[in-house]
C-alpha cells in the first residue's frame, strides 16, 4: 500500500505518476492548441474542391490531393519568390549582424562619457512602437541623405540593409544588447594579454573577441533572418514591385481571393479551382516551410538566445 502510494503521488524530490500523467496530458493538450492552426491548414490544403465545399468534411480529406500545392507553386512563381525572399532576408541580416557586433563591442568593452545616456537612449527609442515610426520613416527614406551623400533607398534592397548597417534594422536593439551581453562576459585578462603582446584594437576584436561569440552571431542571424522574412508591410512599401517575397505573394493571393469571395463561399466554377481556401492554405504552408526547416535545425540557438541576451535579468 505504501509502495503504491509512493508511485502514484511521489515523494519529496520525485514527482508521482499521477502528477506526471496530468502534466503529460496538459502538455499534449496545449501542444495540440499550438499546432491546431497549422494542422487545420495542412488538412484543408490536401482537400479537393468538392471536399472544401462539402461541410460534412472537416478534418480528413476524402481523397487527398496535392493539386492545391501545384496550383500554389505556379501561382506564386515559387522559384522567383524564393530567390527574392532569400535576397530580401539575407543581405539585411548580414548588415544587421555585422553592425550589431561592432556596436555591441563598443558598448560592451569600452567606457566613455555618456555611455549610460546613449544606452538609455537606445532602449528608449526601441520602446517606441514601430507603427509610430512607420509613416515618418517612409517620408524620411524617400529622399534620404547620410553624411551629405544622397542614398537612393527606395525600390532597392538598400531600404533594408542601409538602415541595418547604421543600427536601425528591424528590432536591432535586441541584437545589439545580445552582443553587448556576450562581449561583457568575456574575461578581461584575455584582452589585456593581447594588448601586452602588442595587438591593435581592431585586431583584438577580429581575432579574439569574434571567435568567442559565435553563438551570438548565430542567434542574431537567425532571428534577424526570420523577422526580415516575415516583414511584408515594409517590404511592399519599400520595394514596390521590384521584389515579391513568398509572404508578399501570399498576401496578394489573399487579397485577390477575398475580393472575389467576400463571404468565403465557394462554387464549382473555373475560378474556384485556383482561388480557394485549400490553395491559400497550401501557399501559407509553403511560405513558412523554409522557416520551419531553419527552426528545426537551429532551435537550440533560438531558445538559448533569450537566455543569453540577459533579458531574463542577469
Amino acid at each position, binding site marked *: 500500500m505504501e509502495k503504491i502510494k509512493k508511485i502514484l503521488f511521489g515523494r519529496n524530490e520525485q*514527482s508521482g505518476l499521477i502528477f506526471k500523467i496530468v502534466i503529460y496530458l*496538459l*502538455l499534449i493538450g*496545449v501542444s495540440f*492548441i*499550438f*499546432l*491546431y*492552426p497549422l494542422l*487545420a491548414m495542412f488538412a484543408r490544403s490536401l482537400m479537393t474542391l468538392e471536399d472544401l465545399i462539402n461541410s460534412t468534411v472537416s478534418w480528413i480529406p476524402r481523397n487527398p490531393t496535392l493539386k492545391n500545392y501545384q496550383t500554389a507553386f505556379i501561382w506564386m512563381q515559387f522559384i522567383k519568390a524564393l530567390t527574392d525572399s532569400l535576397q530580401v532576408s539575407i543581405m539585411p541580416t548580414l548588415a544587421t549582424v555585422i*553592425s550589431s557586433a*561592432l*556596436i555591441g*563591442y*563598443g*558598448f560592451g568593452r*569600452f*567606457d*566613455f*562619457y555618456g*555611455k549610460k545616456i*546613449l544606452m538609455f537612449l537606445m532602449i528608449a527609442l526601441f*520602446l*517606441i*512602437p514601430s*507603427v*509610430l515610426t*512607420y*509613416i*515618418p520613416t517612409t*517620408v*524620411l527614406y524617400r529622399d534620404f541623405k547620410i*553624411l551629405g551623400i544622397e542614398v537612393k533607398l527606395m525600390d532597392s534592397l538598400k531600404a533594408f540593409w542601409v*538602415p541595418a548597417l*547604421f*543600427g*536601425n534594422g528591424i528590432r536591432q536593439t535586441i541584437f545589439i544588447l545580445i552582443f553587448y551581453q556576450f562581449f561583457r562576459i568575456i574575461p578581461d585578462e584575455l584582452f589585456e594579454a593581447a594588448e601586452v603582446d602588442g595587438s591593435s*584594437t581592431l585586431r583584438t*576584436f577580429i581575432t579574439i573577441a569574434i571567435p568567442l561569440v559565435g553563438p551570438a552571431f548565430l542567434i542574431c542571424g537567425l532571428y534577424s533572418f*526570420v523577422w526580415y522574412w516575415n*516583414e511584408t508591410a515594409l517590404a511592399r*512599401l519599400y520595394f*514596390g514591385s521590384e521584389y515579391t517575397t513568398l*509572404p508578399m505573394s501570399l*498576401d496578394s493571393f489573399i487579397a485577390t481571393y*477575398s475580393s472575389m469571395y467576400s463571404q*468565403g463561399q465557394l462554387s464549382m466554377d473555373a475560378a474556384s479551382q485556383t482561388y480557394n481556401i485549400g490553395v491559400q492554405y497550401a501557399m*501559407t504552408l509553403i511560405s*513558412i516551410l523554409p522557416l*520551419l526547416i531553419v*527552426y*528545426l535545425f537551429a*532551435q537550440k540557438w*533560438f*531558445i538559448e538566445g*533569450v*537566455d543569453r541576451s540577459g*533579458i*531574463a*535579468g542577469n
Partner: protein
Amino acid sequence: MRKFAWLSLVKRVKNILKAIKKYFGLFLKYIGFIWLKQRFQRIPNRYKKMIYGLLFIAPWLIGLVYISIPIFLKSIRMALSDKYYFITGVGWQITGKWYEFTQFERIFTEEPYHLSQISATFEDVLLVVPLVVIFALILALMLNQKIKGIGIFRTIFFIPVILLSGNMLMNFERNSLLTVPAIANGTISSFMTDYFPDLFNEVLLNAFGQIVLILWLSGVQILIFLAGLQKMDKSIYEAARIDGASIWELFWKITLPAMIPLIYINIIYTTIIYANLSNNALIQLITSSSDESRSLAGTLTDEINYGRAYSAALSWILFGIELTVIGFYSLVVRLSSKKYD
C-alpha cells in the same frame, strides 16, 4: 612634331600628378597622419579606449543622428500638423500650427468616426496582455518539469516564435482558426455560465475564444520565464520542502516572487508586440489612412481623406494606449507584490 608635343603634354601631366601625389603623401605623412598618430599614442590609455569605443559605436551614432532622431521628431511634427505632403521640386510641405493640435481635435471632437476603433483596440490590448502573461507563466512552469520528452514539447511551444507575424494572425482570424472549436462552443462555456460569476466568465470565455492567439503570442514570454526558472537556486526549494512546504506554497512563496521582475518585462514586451501587430483595428486604420495610393509619392491627393498627419496622430494615441496598459498592469503587479518586500 605635333605628336611629340602631345606626348610631352601627357608626360607633363603625369609628372604633375606624381608631384601632387608625392607632396600630398608627404603632407599627410608629416603634417597630418604621423602627427595624429603620435599624438594619439601620447593620449592616456583611458582616453584612447574612449575614442576606440566611440569609433566602434560610430555606425549607431550616425544612425541615431540621421535616422532615429529625425524619424522621432518627424513623427511628432506630423502628428501636430494639419497636412503633410510632398510637391516635386519644392519638398515637403507642412501646414497648420503645431499648438493647434488639429488632428487630435479632429479625432476626438470634430470627426469622431474612429473612436470606436480606438476603444476597441484599447479593450483588446487590456484584455489580452494579462492573459498572455499568465498563460506564459503557467506554460513555463509546465516546461520546467523534468520529465521525458520535454524537448519535443519545447520545440512545439516555440514554433510561434518564428512564425508569428501580423499577417499570419490575420490569416488565422479571417479563417476562424484562432480558437479550437471544441473549446469555444462545447460544454465548458455552458458549465461556466452556470457556476461562476459573470465578469469572471466573460474574461475566461474571452480567453478560450482566442486561445490560439494567446498561446501563439506567448512564445518569447515563455522563453523569458523559463530562463528565469532555470536560473533559480534549487537549494531554496529543498530547504523549504524539508520545512514541510507544499507545492502550492512553494509556488506562491518562492517561485512567484522571483518571477516578478520578469513579469514586468513580459508585460512590457507583450503590450508592445501585441499592440503593434497589424491585426488590430487601429493599426489597420493607421496604415490605410497614411498612404492611400500605397506609392509613397506623398502628394496632396493622398491627403484628401485622412492623410499622414491624421495617422501619425493615431499612432501617438496607440502609443498612449500602450503606456496606459503597461502602467496599469505594472501598478497592479507592484501593489499585489508589496507583501514580498
